[in-house]
């Protein structure tokens, strides 16, 4: 990571992208959501208290406002996560088409409950509210890629392939 403009806590590239976001909103604070996604990615996929303080400094807002955002939105992580984040949809369509069985399978085979990370740090497993693909239920999101019409075999194939 190269040191940088901004407040010197983030890479030059990230600061450049955040500055581009600022251009798009009437005030800087409004760009927090997209910016925090970028920051989260740069900081190993989660937002520690230290990262939150750094971001607060970059945005010149009190840290509590960012902490509140991280606490509110499920796609921001306030705790360390594995190398990948697996989000299994648990809402109506997916539930009717077997999400509960998939969840039980993950628990049996990989030993993780909702919110837990595998012992090898490969992935963090999260049961999620509707991810918007009811027509191809049940589905899951692995990092930013969706996998649809899941069966236990299909799910295993995806998870086994994760580095």
């Amino acid at each position, binding site marked *: 990571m190269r040191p940088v403009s901004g407040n010197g806590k983030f890479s030059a590239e990230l600061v450049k992208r955040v500055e581009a976001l600022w251009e798009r909103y009437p005030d800087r604070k409004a760009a927090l959501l997209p910016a925090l996604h970028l920051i989260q990615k740069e900081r190993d996929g989660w937002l520690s208290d230290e990262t939150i303080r750094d971001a607060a400094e970059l945005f010149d807002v*009190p*840290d*509590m*406002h960012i*902490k*509140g955002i991280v*606490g*509110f939105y499920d796609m921001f992580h306030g705790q360390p996560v594995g190398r990948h984040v697996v989000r299994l949809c648990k809402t109506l369509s997916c539930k009717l088409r077997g999400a509960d069985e998939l969840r039980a399978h993950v628990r049996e085979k990989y030993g993780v409950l909702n919110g837990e990370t595998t012992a090898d740090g490969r992935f963090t497993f999260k049961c999620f509210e509707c991810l918007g693909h009811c027509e191809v239920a049940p589905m899951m999101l692995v990092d930013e890629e969706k996998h649809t019409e899941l069966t236990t075999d299909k799910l295993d194939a995806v998870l086994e392939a994760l580095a």
Partner: protein
Amino acid sequence: MSGNGNVTLTIDGTEVTVPKGTNLIEAARRLGTHVPHYCYHPALSVVGNCRICLVEVEGMPKLQIACNTEARDGMVMRTRNERVEKGREGVMEFLLINHPLDCTICDQAGECKLQDYAFHHGAGVSRFEDEKVHKPKNVSWGDRVVFDSERCILCTLCVRFLDEVAGTDEVSIDARGDQVTLIVKADGKLTSPYQMNIIDLCPVGALTSRDFRFKSRLWFMQFADTICTSCARGCNTTVGVRDERVLRMVPRHNADVNGDWMCDHGRLHFAIANDDERLSVPRVDGRGVPYAVAAQRAADLLREAGDSAAAVASPFMTNEELHVLKLICDAAGIEKRLFLNPVGPGDELLVHSEKSPNARGAALLGFEAVDQDCEGVQEIDVLLYVTPREGIALPETVEARAKRRIVFAFHEREADVLFPLTTWIEKDGTVVSAGDRVQRLVKGFSRFGSLLTERAALEMVLQALEAGFEPAATPAQAFERVAAALAPFEGLTFTGVGAHGAPLGRQEVPA
């Protein structure tokens, strides 16, 4: 149409005309109708999150929140009927689902909106059978405020006050749904010198005062509507007392002085009123004596000294006390009439740079403000000295310039005649606050039973000097004497000054 920027609407069958832009809570207030609300405060932005202020507006299919609905011409609004009550009952049920209902040990009990509205709008029973959500309790927000997340109804009055009024923006919301809680920025400790106002604002027992909590049930206290004397602002306050002790002081609304707020320094500055070591009887040459004996001795000393005496008054004295002191100076021929005038940093909100309530009154009554060096007091025979509050005093070297000393003080000290000094909560009287506003002090209690105020003690001294003088029979009569002596007080009456004060130099319109 009402025109002129006004709108006319009908509330519970009665027409009312209000300025355009008025919300329905304020419109109803005009008719003396209370629309229940937690999160709404007239001095803060509207968020509409508590939902208890539901009203029915004709033509709108759903109940509306009165705080965020603007009064419109021809609007027909109802604040009470079965539908509205049912709506409020539903809101109350949700608010109480995770509330701990620990009223028996909660400081807010007796002045809690959740209690009041549960009584007026609640169903009386709970249908909730599951375990309540548990959240952080007894969370320290620094040395003044304690937070209980389970009691919090998330109205965000504290969040908005600190952001919009105090300007420190230091409390915010964290998490979501039934897990929501309040968080404080940085190290979790509040920094605002006005932070304790959030305790008064909090409609429930989520924010409590570390100083006051668990000291007394509300209904065992008595209250005096007086003012704060920590600076010249004279914030209007209500002082809660019990067993001759001040337990707390909170701001009292006065749009012309302090709005709804006061600073923490003023609020917490009452230890002297509760001090058990205070002087309880007058002393002459170190021996306890009746007031009459001390007054006679003081009068003798002053008469002998004449113009070789000096009077150093205190700007913590009321106009009435200063007036009697002035009459003593007149009677004894004392020319040097001074007062110590404590000053310090002020701020842009309420804190004034004059650190006493009545420097203006002292000046009006002919006393000259001096600093602690007190050049005016050189070699003199007698010094009549009313000590101010802690933080400022004549240096011993200045006092030593006098051969004899008559002193009013809180504590035991060197003096030929020593009178006990009383605090602001032990007396009735008036002061002239910032903006030349006359405001009243209202007595909450008398300490030690027998303690006389400076006015009464000084009147005894004056009586000993001048046989014809009659002490004022009531605080109102004492005020009349001041008003008669000072031109700027013309037209003011004690009743007219009332609980909210009155500006100097303005004729009162006769009723």
